[in-house]
Protein backbone atom coordinates (compact mmCIF):
# COMPACT_ATOMS: atom_id res chain seq x y z
CA UNK A 1 0.00 0.00 0.00
CA UNK A 2 1.48 3.39 -0.94
CA UNK A 3 1.75 6.37 1.43
CA UNK A 4 -1.26 8.20 0.00
CA UNK A 5 -3.53 5.15 0.42
CA UNK A 6 -2.21 4.60 3.95
CA UNK A 7 -2.80 8.26 4.76
CA UNK A 8 -6.40 8.14 3.51
CA UNK A 9 -7.07 4.97 5.46
CA UNK A 10 -5.51 6.46 8.58
CA UNK A 11 -7.42 9.72 8.33
CA UNK A 12 -10.73 7.94 7.93
CA UNK A 13 -9.98 5.82 10.99
CA UNK A 14 -9.09 8.76 13.27
CA UNK A 15 -11.57 9.05 16.09
CA UNK A 16 -11.78 10.05 19.69
CA UNK A 17 -10.08 6.83 20.75
CA UNK A 18 -6.84 7.92 19.13
CA UNK A 19 -3.83 6.66 21.07
CA UNK A 20 -2.16 10.08 21.10
CA UNK A 21 -3.43 13.59 20.57
CA UNK A 22 -1.89 16.02 18.09
CA UNK A 23 -0.35 17.94 21.00
CA UNK A 24 1.33 14.80 22.35
CA UNK A 25 2.74 13.98 18.93
CA UNK A 26 3.99 17.55 18.48
CA UNK A 27 5.66 17.34 21.89
CA UNK A 28 7.56 14.21 20.79
CA UNK A 29 8.57 15.79 17.48
CA UNK A 30 9.76 18.92 19.28
CA UNK A 31 12.84 16.95 20.35
CA UNK A 32 14.09 17.21 16.75
CA UNK A 33 16.33 20.26 16.37
CA UNK A 34 17.56 21.83 13.15
CA UNK A 35 21.35 21.98 13.72
CA UNK A 36 21.72 25.01 11.45
CA UNK A 37 19.31 27.38 13.18
CA UNK A 38 19.18 25.70 16.60
CA UNK A 39 15.37 25.57 16.97
CA UNK A 40 13.12 22.54 17.03
CA UNK A 41 10.93 21.75 14.05
CA UNK A 42 7.65 22.42 15.86
CA UNK A 43 8.59 25.93 17.01
CA UNK A 44 9.94 26.61 13.50
CA UNK A 45 6.41 25.87 12.22
CA UNK A 46 7.65 23.11 9.95
CA UNK A 47 5.25 20.47 11.31
CA UNK A 48 1.85 21.05 9.71
CA UNK A 49 -0.11 18.17 11.19
CA UNK A 50 0.16 14.91 13.11
CA UNK A 51 -2.59 12.35 13.61
CA UNK A 52 -2.73 8.99 15.34
CA UNK A 53 -5.36 6.27 15.24
CA UNK A 54 -6.34 3.93 18.05
CA UNK A 55 -3.92 1.31 16.75
CA UNK A 56 -0.88 3.53 17.11
CA UNK A 57 -0.49 4.35 13.42
CA UNK A 58 0.74 7.90 12.93
CA UNK A 59 0.73 10.29 9.98
CA UNK A 60 2.95 13.39 10.19
CA UNK A 61 2.66 16.12 7.58
CA UNK A 62 5.58 18.52 7.49
CA UNK A 63 7.59 20.83 5.28
CA UNK A 64 11.15 22.17 5.15
CA UNK A 65 12.38 25.75 4.99
CA UNK A 66 13.80 25.09 1.51
CA UNK A 67 13.51 22.41 -1.17
CA UNK A 68 17.29 22.44 -1.44
CA UNK A 69 17.77 21.33 2.17
CA UNK A 70 20.67 18.84 2.18
CA UNK A 71 19.28 17.25 5.36
CA UNK A 72 15.90 16.53 3.80
CA UNK A 73 15.84 12.77 4.30
CA UNK A 74 17.71 12.90 7.57
CA UNK A 75 15.21 15.29 9.15
CA UNK A 76 12.36 13.12 7.88
CA UNK A 77 14.01 10.12 9.55
CA UNK A 78 14.53 11.99 12.84
CA UNK A 79 10.85 12.94 12.93
CA UNK A 80 9.90 9.31 12.30
CA UNK A 81 12.22 8.08 15.06
CA UNK A 82 11.02 10.70 17.54
CA UNK A 83 7.45 9.40 17.19
CA UNK A 84 8.49 5.75 17.12
CA UNK A 85 10.02 6.22 20.58
CA UNK A 86 6.48 6.77 21.97
CA UNK A 87 4.85 3.77 23.64
CA UNK A 88 2.73 1.41 21.49
CA UNK A 89 3.40 3.16 18.20
CA UNK A 90 2.99 0.73 15.31
CA UNK A 91 3.76 2.65 12.14
CA UNK A 92 4.83 6.21 11.35
CA UNK A 93 4.43 7.86 7.96
CA UNK A 94 6.18 11.20 7.48
CA UNK A 95 5.10 13.13 4.43
CA UNK A 96 6.98 16.23 3.27
CA UNK A 97 4.77 18.70 1.41
CA UNK A 98 5.55 22.02 -0.28
CA UNK A 99 2.08 23.53 -0.17
CA UNK A 100 1.63 25.78 1.68
CA UNK A 101 5.20 26.99 1.27
CA UNK A 102 6.90 27.66 4.62
CA UNK A 103 7.73 31.19 5.61
CA UNK A 104 8.83 32.81 8.83
CA UNK A 105 5.30 33.89 9.82
CA UNK A 106 4.61 30.19 10.54
CA UNK A 107 7.25 30.10 13.29
CA UNK A 108 6.63 30.76 16.98
CA UNK A 109 6.99 34.32 18.21
CA UNK A 110 10.18 33.64 20.16
CA UNK A 111 11.78 32.06 17.07
CA UNK A 112 10.85 35.08 14.97
CA UNK A 113 12.26 37.35 17.64
CA UNK A 114 15.49 35.36 18.01
CA UNK A 115 16.06 35.13 14.24
CA UNK A 116 15.19 38.77 13.81
CA UNK A 117 18.32 39.68 15.78
Amino acid at each position, binding site marked *: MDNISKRKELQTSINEDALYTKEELFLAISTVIDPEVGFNLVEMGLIYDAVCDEGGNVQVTMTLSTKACPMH*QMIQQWVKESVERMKDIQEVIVE*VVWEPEWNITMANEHVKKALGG
Partner: protein
Amino acid sequence: MFQISQDFAPPFKLIAPFFIIGSIFYLLSVLSLFGFHVDNFHHLDVKMLSFIHLFLLGFVMMIIFGAMAQLVPVVLEVGHFAVELFYAIWPLLGIGTLMMVFGFLYLPTLLPYGGSVVLIAMMIFVFEIFLTMRKVQKFNVVMSSIFISNTFLFFGIIFGLAMALSYAGTLDLDLDALLRSHVYLVIGGYVTITLMGLSTVLLPMFGLSHGFTKKLLNISISLMSSAVVLVVISSFYDMLFIKYTAYVLAIFSLLVYFYLVYQIYTTRARKENDIYVKSMMLAYSFMLMSLVFGLLYLITSQESFLLVFGWLLVFGFFGFAITGHIYKIVPFLVWFERFSPLVGKKKVPMLADMLPKQSSHAQMTFTAIGVVLITLALLFNNDLLINAGASFLVFGAIAFIRTVIYMINYKKGTIA
Protein backbone atom coordinates in the same frame (compact mmCIF):
# COMPACT_ATOMS: atom_id res chain seq x y z
CA MET B 1 5.09 14.21 -3.16
CA PHE B 2 8.10 16.15 -4.44
CA GLN B 3 11.06 13.85 -3.97
CA ILE B 4 14.56 15.13 -3.44
CA SER B 5 17.43 12.70 -3.85
CA GLN B 6 19.70 12.91 -0.85
CA ASP B 7 20.77 9.28 -0.87
CA PHE B 8 23.81 10.11 -2.90
CA ALA B 9 25.55 12.50 -0.52
CA PRO B 10 29.25 11.75 -1.04
CA PRO B 11 31.38 10.59 1.89
CA PHE B 12 33.40 13.21 3.71
CA LYS B 13 36.72 11.49 2.89
CA LEU B 14 35.97 12.17 -0.77
CA ILE B 15 35.32 15.88 -0.33
CA ALA B 16 37.73 16.77 2.50
CA PRO B 17 40.89 16.71 0.31
CA PHE B 18 39.40 19.38 -1.97
CA PHE B 19 39.03 21.74 0.99
CA ILE B 20 42.37 20.91 2.61
CA ILE B 21 44.40 21.16 -0.60
CA GLY B 22 42.42 24.19 -1.75
CA SER B 23 43.30 25.96 1.52
CA ILE B 24 47.00 25.16 1.05
CA PHE B 25 46.89 26.55 -2.49
CA TYR B 26 45.24 29.68 -1.08
CA LEU B 27 48.23 30.16 1.23
CA LEU B 28 50.69 29.41 -1.61
CA SER B 29 48.98 31.95 -3.86
CA VAL B 30 49.29 34.77 -1.32
CA LEU B 31 52.89 33.77 -0.50
CA SER B 32 53.67 34.08 -4.21
CA LEU B 33 52.67 37.76 -4.01
CA PHE B 34 55.80 38.53 -1.98
CA GLY B 35 58.45 40.08 -4.18
CA PHE B 36 55.81 41.28 -6.62
CA HIS B 37 56.28 44.69 -8.16
CA VAL B 38 53.43 46.65 -9.70
CA ASP B 39 55.02 45.89 -13.10
CA ASN B 40 54.41 42.18 -12.47
CA PHE B 41 50.64 42.80 -12.60
CA HIS B 42 50.59 42.21 -16.31
CA HIS B 43 48.63 39.44 -17.95
CA LEU B 44 51.66 37.74 -19.55
CA ASP B 45 54.11 38.19 -16.67
CA VAL B 46 55.23 34.78 -15.36
CA LYS B 47 54.85 35.80 -11.69
CA MET B 48 51.33 36.99 -12.40
CA LEU B 49 50.51 33.82 -14.29
CA SER B 50 51.85 31.72 -11.40
CA PHE B 51 49.83 33.65 -8.84
CA ILE B 52 46.61 33.59 -10.85
CA HIS B 53 46.85 29.84 -11.55
CA LEU B 54 47.66 29.05 -7.92
CA PHE B 55 44.65 31.07 -6.86
CA LEU B 56 42.13 30.22 -9.59
CA LEU B 57 43.06 26.59 -10.27
CA GLY B 58 44.48 25.55 -6.91
CA PHE B 59 42.02 27.39 -4.69
CA VAL B 60 38.91 28.57 -6.56
CA MET B 61 38.46 25.57 -8.87
CA MET B 62 39.53 23.05 -6.23
CA ILE B 63 36.99 24.37 -3.73
CA ILE B 64 34.21 24.74 -6.32
CA PHE B 65 34.74 21.16 -7.55
CA GLY B 66 34.71 19.83 -3.98
CA ALA B 67 31.62 21.86 -3.13
CA MET B 68 29.89 20.67 -6.31
CA ALA B 69 30.40 17.04 -5.27
CA GLN B 70 28.18 17.87 -2.30
CA LEU B 71 25.87 20.43 -3.89
CA VAL B 72 25.03 18.75 -7.21
CA PRO B 73 22.49 16.34 -5.68
CA VAL B 74 21.00 19.26 -3.72
CA VAL B 75 20.74 21.60 -6.71
CA LEU B 76 19.95 19.10 -9.46
CA GLU B 77 17.74 16.92 -7.22
CA VAL B 78 19.32 13.74 -8.63
CA GLY B 79 22.23 11.58 -7.52
CA HIS B 80 25.69 11.77 -9.09
CA PHE B 81 26.40 9.71 -12.21
CA ALA B 82 29.65 8.40 -10.66
CA VAL B 83 30.72 10.34 -7.60
CA GLU B 84 33.82 8.12 -7.22
CA LEU B 85 35.32 10.03 -10.13
CA PHE B 86 35.93 12.90 -7.73
CA TYR B 87 38.67 10.77 -6.11
CA ALA B 88 40.65 11.29 -9.34
CA ILE B 89 39.90 14.99 -9.76
CA TRP B 90 41.71 16.56 -6.80
CA PRO B 91 45.08 14.79 -7.28
CA LEU B 92 45.08 15.56 -11.01
CA LEU B 93 44.05 19.17 -10.49
CA GLY B 94 46.61 19.66 -7.71
CA ILE B 95 49.51 18.08 -9.62
CA GLY B 96 48.57 19.80 -12.88
CA THR B 97 48.40 23.19 -11.18
CA LEU B 98 51.84 22.73 -9.59
CA MET B 99 53.30 21.62 -12.93
CA MET B 100 51.85 24.68 -14.65
CA VAL B 101 53.14 27.06 -11.98
CA PHE B 102 56.59 25.46 -12.14
CA GLY B 103 56.36 25.69 -15.91
CA PHE B 104 55.54 29.40 -15.84
CA LEU B 105 58.37 30.19 -13.45
CA TYR B 106 61.18 27.87 -14.53
CA LEU B 107 60.43 25.43 -17.32
CA PRO B 108 57.96 26.45 -20.07
CA THR B 109 58.20 23.03 -21.73
CA LEU B 110 56.40 21.64 -18.67
CA LEU B 111 53.32 23.78 -19.42
CA PRO B 112 51.60 21.54 -21.98
CA TYR B 113 52.03 18.56 -19.67
CA GLY B 114 50.69 20.45 -16.66
CA GLY B 115 47.91 21.88 -18.83
CA SER B 116 47.02 18.38 -20.05
CA VAL B 117 46.81 17.03 -16.50
CA VAL B 118 44.53 19.94 -15.52
CA LEU B 119 42.53 19.35 -18.70
CA ILE B 120 41.99 15.68 -17.77
CA ALA B 121 40.87 16.67 -14.25
CA MET B 122 38.41 19.22 -15.61
CA MET B 123 37.13 16.94 -18.36
CA ILE B 124 36.37 14.27 -15.76
CA PHE B 125 34.50 16.89 -13.74
CA VAL B 126 32.61 18.34 -16.70
CA PHE B 127 31.53 14.96 -18.07
CA GLU B 128 30.52 13.70 -14.62
CA ILE B 129 28.29 16.78 -14.27
CA PHE B 130 26.88 16.41 -17.80
CA LEU B 131 26.13 12.72 -17.28
CA THR B 132 24.52 13.53 -13.93
CA MET B 133 22.40 16.19 -15.63
CA ARG B 134 21.03 13.60 -18.06
CA LYS B 135 18.97 12.27 -15.14
CA VAL B 136 17.28 15.64 -14.62
CA GLN B 137 13.75 15.57 -16.04
CA LYS B 138 12.77 19.20 -15.73
CA PHE B 139 15.31 22.02 -15.69
CA ASN B 140 14.87 25.08 -13.52
CA VAL B 141 16.95 28.24 -13.84
CA VAL B 142 19.57 27.10 -11.31
CA MET B 143 20.01 23.76 -13.07
CA SER B 144 20.35 25.59 -16.39
CA SER B 145 23.05 27.78 -14.86
CA ILE B 146 25.05 24.65 -13.96
CA PHE B 147 24.69 23.36 -17.52
CA ILE B 148 25.71 26.69 -19.09
CA SER B 149 28.68 27.23 -16.77
CA ASN B 150 30.03 23.73 -17.40
CA THR B 151 29.69 24.20 -21.16
CA PHE B 152 31.78 27.38 -20.89
CA LEU B 153 34.30 25.51 -18.74
CA PHE B 154 34.61 22.82 -21.41
CA PHE B 155 35.54 25.40 -24.06
CA GLY B 156 37.64 27.40 -21.60
CA ILE B 157 39.94 24.47 -20.94
CA ILE B 158 40.28 23.71 -24.66
CA PHE B 159 41.45 27.31 -25.17
CA GLY B 160 43.70 26.99 -22.12
CA LEU B 161 45.39 23.90 -23.50
CA ALA B 162 45.91 25.61 -26.86
CA MET B 163 47.52 28.48 -24.96
CA ALA B 164 49.79 26.16 -23.01
CA LEU B 165 50.92 24.51 -26.27
CA SER B 166 51.47 27.91 -27.82
CA TYR B 167 53.32 29.22 -24.75
CA ALA B 168 55.68 26.24 -24.87
CA GLY B 169 56.33 26.80 -28.58
CA THR B 170 54.52 23.67 -29.77
CA LEU B 171 51.83 25.71 -31.57
CA ASP B 172 52.03 29.15 -33.11
CA LEU B 173 48.74 30.83 -32.18
CA ASP B 174 47.60 34.34 -31.24
CA LEU B 175 48.25 34.24 -27.48
CA ASP B 176 46.38 37.46 -26.74
CA ALA B 177 43.21 36.29 -28.49
CA LEU B 178 43.39 32.89 -26.82
CA LEU B 179 44.03 34.44 -23.42
CA ARG B 180 41.04 36.80 -23.64
CA SER B 181 38.76 33.94 -24.64
CA HIS B 182 40.21 31.62 -22.00
CA VAL B 183 39.86 34.21 -19.21
CA TYR B 184 36.29 35.11 -20.14
CA LEU B 185 35.18 31.51 -20.64
CA VAL B 186 36.62 30.35 -17.31
CA ILE B 187 36.14 33.42 -15.10
CA GLY B 188 32.99 34.92 -16.62
CA GLY B 189 31.47 31.78 -18.05
CA TYR B 190 32.29 29.22 -15.42
CA VAL B 191 33.21 30.76 -12.06
CA THR B 192 30.83 33.73 -12.17
CA ILE B 193 27.81 31.85 -13.52
CA THR B 194 28.42 28.98 -11.09
CA LEU B 195 28.60 31.43 -8.17
CA MET B 196 25.44 33.15 -9.43
CA GLY B 197 23.51 29.88 -9.65
CA LEU B 198 24.70 28.32 -6.41
CA SER B 199 24.36 31.49 -4.36
CA THR B 200 20.73 31.77 -5.46
CA VAL B 201 20.18 28.44 -3.70
CA LEU B 202 22.52 28.89 -0.75
CA LEU B 203 21.92 32.51 0.28
CA PRO B 204 18.14 32.04 0.77
CA MET B 205 18.72 28.65 2.41
CA PHE B 206 21.00 30.07 5.11
CA GLY B 207 19.11 33.36 5.44
CA LEU B 208 15.63 31.75 5.33
CA SER B 209 14.65 34.20 2.57
CA HIS B 210 11.33 33.93 0.79
CA GLY B 211 9.35 36.02 -1.65
CA PHE B 212 12.11 37.12 -4.06
CA THR B 213 12.00 36.47 -7.80
CA LYS B 214 14.48 34.19 -9.55
CA LYS B 215 13.75 35.87 -12.89
CA LEU B 216 16.66 38.21 -12.14
CA LEU B 217 18.99 35.20 -12.14
CA ASN B 218 17.72 34.30 -15.60
CA ILE B 219 18.46 37.82 -16.84
CA SER B 220 21.92 38.05 -15.29
CA ILE B 221 22.95 34.63 -16.65
CA SER B 222 21.65 35.48 -20.13
CA LEU B 223 23.59 38.77 -20.09
CA MET B 224 26.80 37.13 -18.84
CA SER B 225 26.52 34.25 -21.33
CA SER B 226 26.04 36.72 -24.20
CA ALA B 227 29.02 38.74 -22.96
CA VAL B 228 31.27 35.67 -22.87
CA VAL B 229 30.28 34.56 -26.38
CA LEU B 230 30.79 38.08 -27.76
CA VAL B 231 34.23 38.41 -26.17
CA VAL B 232 35.33 35.11 -27.71
CA ILE B 233 34.09 36.27 -31.15
CA SER B 234 35.70 39.69 -30.80
CA SER B 235 39.00 38.10 -29.73
CA PHE B 236 39.45 36.42 -33.10
CA TYR B 237 37.85 38.97 -35.43
CA ASP B 238 39.11 42.13 -33.68
CA MET B 239 35.74 43.88 -33.61
CA LEU B 240 35.99 46.70 -31.12
CA PHE B 241 32.25 47.41 -31.00
CA ILE B 242 31.41 43.80 -30.14
CA LYS B 243 34.15 43.70 -27.52
CA TYR B 244 32.88 46.81 -25.73
CA THR B 245 29.29 45.63 -26.04
CA ALA B 246 30.38 42.43 -24.30
CA TYR B 247 32.08 44.35 -21.48
CA VAL B 248 28.96 46.47 -20.93
CA LEU B 249 26.74 43.35 -20.93
CA ALA B 250 29.01 41.71 -18.33
CA ILE B 251 28.79 44.77 -16.09
CA PHE B 252 24.98 44.86 -16.42
CA SER B 253 24.85 41.15 -15.68
CA LEU B 254 26.70 41.64 -12.39
CA LEU B 255 24.50 44.62 -11.50
CA VAL B 256 21.32 42.59 -12.07
CA TYR B 257 22.82 39.76 -10.03
CA PHE B 258 23.64 42.21 -7.25
CA TYR B 259 20.03 43.40 -7.24
CA LEU B 260 18.92 39.76 -6.87
CA VAL B 261 21.30 39.30 -3.92
CA TYR B 262 19.97 42.52 -2.40
CA GLN B 263 16.41 41.16 -2.70
CA ILE B 264 17.45 37.90 -1.04
CA TYR B 265 19.13 39.92 1.73
CA THR B 266 16.11 42.14 2.38
CA THR B 267 13.65 39.22 2.44
CA ARG B 268 15.69 37.10 4.87
CA ALA B 269 14.06 36.05 8.11
CA ARG B 270 17.37 35.32 9.78
CA LYS B 271 18.92 38.68 10.60
CA GLU B 272 22.02 37.42 12.43
CA ASN B 273 25.22 38.68 10.81
CA ASP B 274 27.52 35.70 11.29
CA ILE B 275 30.87 35.18 9.57
CA TYR B 276 29.06 33.85 6.48
CA VAL B 277 26.92 36.95 6.08
CA LYS B 278 29.86 39.26 6.80
CA SER B 279 32.04 37.43 4.23
CA MET B 280 29.30 37.66 1.63
CA MET B 281 28.82 41.37 2.36
CA LEU B 282 32.54 41.90 1.77
CA ALA B 283 32.41 39.78 -1.39
CA TYR B 284 29.57 41.81 -2.89
CA SER B 285 31.11 45.11 -1.78
CA PHE B 286 34.32 44.18 -3.60
CA MET B 287 32.26 43.10 -6.61
CA LEU B 288 30.55 46.50 -6.75
CA MET B 289 33.88 48.28 -6.35
CA SER B 290 35.35 46.18 -9.16
CA LEU B 291 32.45 47.22 -11.41
CA VAL B 292 33.15 50.88 -10.70
CA PHE B 293 36.78 50.40 -11.76
CA GLY B 294 35.66 48.35 -14.77
CA LEU B 295 33.48 51.25 -15.88
CA LEU B 296 36.31 53.72 -15.26
CA TYR B 297 38.58 51.59 -17.44
CA LEU B 298 36.00 51.55 -20.24
CA ILE B 299 35.78 55.34 -20.05
CA THR B 300 39.48 56.23 -19.57
CA SER B 301 41.37 53.15 -20.91
CA GLN B 302 43.76 53.56 -17.98
CA GLU B 303 45.38 50.18 -17.35
CA SER B 304 45.59 50.53 -13.56
CA PHE B 305 41.76 50.60 -13.45
CA LEU B 306 41.64 47.33 -15.38
CA LEU B 307 44.12 45.77 -12.95
CA VAL B 308 42.11 46.93 -9.95
CA PHE B 309 38.92 45.63 -11.60
CA GLY B 310 40.50 42.19 -12.05
CA TRP B 311 42.07 42.15 -8.60
CA LEU B 312 38.87 43.11 -6.76
CA LEU B 313 36.74 40.72 -8.79
CA VAL B 314 39.02 37.71 -8.45
CA PHE B 315 40.52 38.09 -5.00
CA GLY B 316 37.86 40.28 -3.40
CA PHE B 317 34.63 38.86 -4.79
CA PHE B 318 35.54 35.23 -5.61
CA GLY B 319 37.83 34.95 -2.59
CA PHE B 320 35.31 36.08 0.04
CA ALA B 321 32.36 34.36 -1.66
CA ILE B 322 34.27 31.08 -1.45
CA THR B 323 35.73 31.41 2.06
CA GLY B 324 32.30 32.51 3.32
CA HIS B 325 30.65 29.42 1.88
CA ILE B 326 33.41 27.17 3.24
CA TYR B 327 32.40 28.32 6.73
CA LYS B 328 28.94 26.86 6.08
CA ILE B 329 29.75 23.83 3.93
CA VAL B 330 32.64 22.28 5.91
CA PRO B 331 30.86 22.29 9.31
CA PHE B 332 27.83 20.72 7.63
CA LEU B 333 29.93 17.97 6.00
CA VAL B 334 31.75 17.18 9.25
CA TRP B 335 28.51 17.27 11.23
CA PHE B 336 26.77 15.04 8.67
CA GLU B 337 29.59 12.48 8.82
CA ARG B 338 30.43 12.56 12.50
CA PHE B 339 27.40 13.70 14.49
CA SER B 340 24.25 12.99 12.50
CA PRO B 341 24.27 9.26 13.42
CA LEU B 342 24.25 10.33 17.10
CA VAL B 343 21.08 12.45 16.89
CA GLY B 344 18.54 11.19 19.41
CA LYS B 345 21.22 9.15 21.20
CA LYS B 346 23.65 11.84 22.45
CA LYS B 347 23.81 15.59 22.68
CA VAL B 348 25.27 16.84 19.42
CA PRO B 349 26.75 20.25 18.59
CA MET B 350 25.03 22.89 16.48
CA LEU B 351 26.77 23.75 13.20
CA ALA B 352 27.71 27.19 14.51
CA ASP B 353 29.58 25.57 17.45
CA MET B 354 31.98 23.95 15.01
CA LEU B 355 33.29 27.21 13.61
CA PRO B 356 36.13 28.92 15.52
CA LYS B 357 34.97 32.52 15.74
CA GLN B 358 38.32 34.21 16.38
CA SER B 359 40.35 32.65 13.58
CA SER B 360 37.52 32.95 11.04
CA HIS B 361 37.11 36.63 11.89
CA ALA B 362 40.90 37.08 11.81
CA GLN B 363 40.91 35.60 8.30
CA MET B 364 38.19 37.96 7.19
CA THR B 365 39.76 41.08 8.71
CA PHE B 366 43.37 40.46 7.62
CA THR B 367 42.29 39.46 4.13
CA ALA B 368 40.02 42.48 3.68
CA ILE B 369 42.86 44.82 4.73
CA GLY B 370 45.24 43.00 2.37
CA VAL B 371 42.84 43.30 -0.56
CA VAL B 372 42.42 47.05 0.05
CA LEU B 373 46.19 47.63 0.42
CA ILE B 374 46.96 45.88 -2.86
CA THR B 375 44.16 47.83 -4.53
CA LEU B 376 45.84 51.03 -3.36
CA ALA B 377 49.24 49.69 -4.50
CA LEU B 378 47.86 49.18 -8.01
CA LEU B 379 46.23 52.60 -8.09
CA PHE B 380 49.28 54.48 -6.80
CA ASN B 381 51.93 52.28 -8.38
CA ASN B 382 53.51 51.53 -5.01
CA ASP B 383 55.62 48.36 -4.50
CA LEU B 384 55.81 48.80 -0.73
CA LEU B 385 52.02 48.61 -0.42
CA ILE B 386 52.04 45.33 -2.35
CA ASN B 387 54.32 43.73 0.25
CA ALA B 388 52.27 45.25 3.07
CA GLY B 389 49.09 43.87 1.47
CA ALA B 390 50.71 40.47 0.90
CA SER B 391 51.70 40.34 4.59
CA PHE B 392 48.09 40.87 5.67
CA LEU B 393 46.91 38.30 3.14
CA VAL B 394 49.38 35.72 4.49
CA PHE B 395 48.12 36.21 8.04
CA GLY B 396 44.60 35.90 6.68
CA ALA B 397 45.50 32.70 4.83
CA ILE B 398 47.13 31.18 7.93
CA ALA B 399 44.00 32.00 9.96
CA PHE B 400 41.91 30.45 7.18
CA ILE B 401 43.90 27.19 7.23
CA ARG B 402 43.68 27.10 11.00
CA THR B 403 39.88 27.51 10.75
CA VAL B 404 39.53 24.76 8.15
CA ILE B 405 41.69 22.33 10.19
CA TYR B 406 39.70 23.12 13.34
CA MET B 407 36.38 22.44 11.59
CA ILE B 408 37.61 19.22 9.99
CA ASN B 409 39.01 17.89 13.27
CA TYR B 410 36.01 18.94 15.37
CA LYS B 411 35.18 16.07 17.70
CA LYS B 412 33.95 17.82 20.83
CA GLY B 413 30.40 18.54 21.76
CA THR B 414 29.13 15.02 22.29
CA ILE B 415 27.98 14.10 25.75
CA ALA B 416 27.50 10.44 26.52
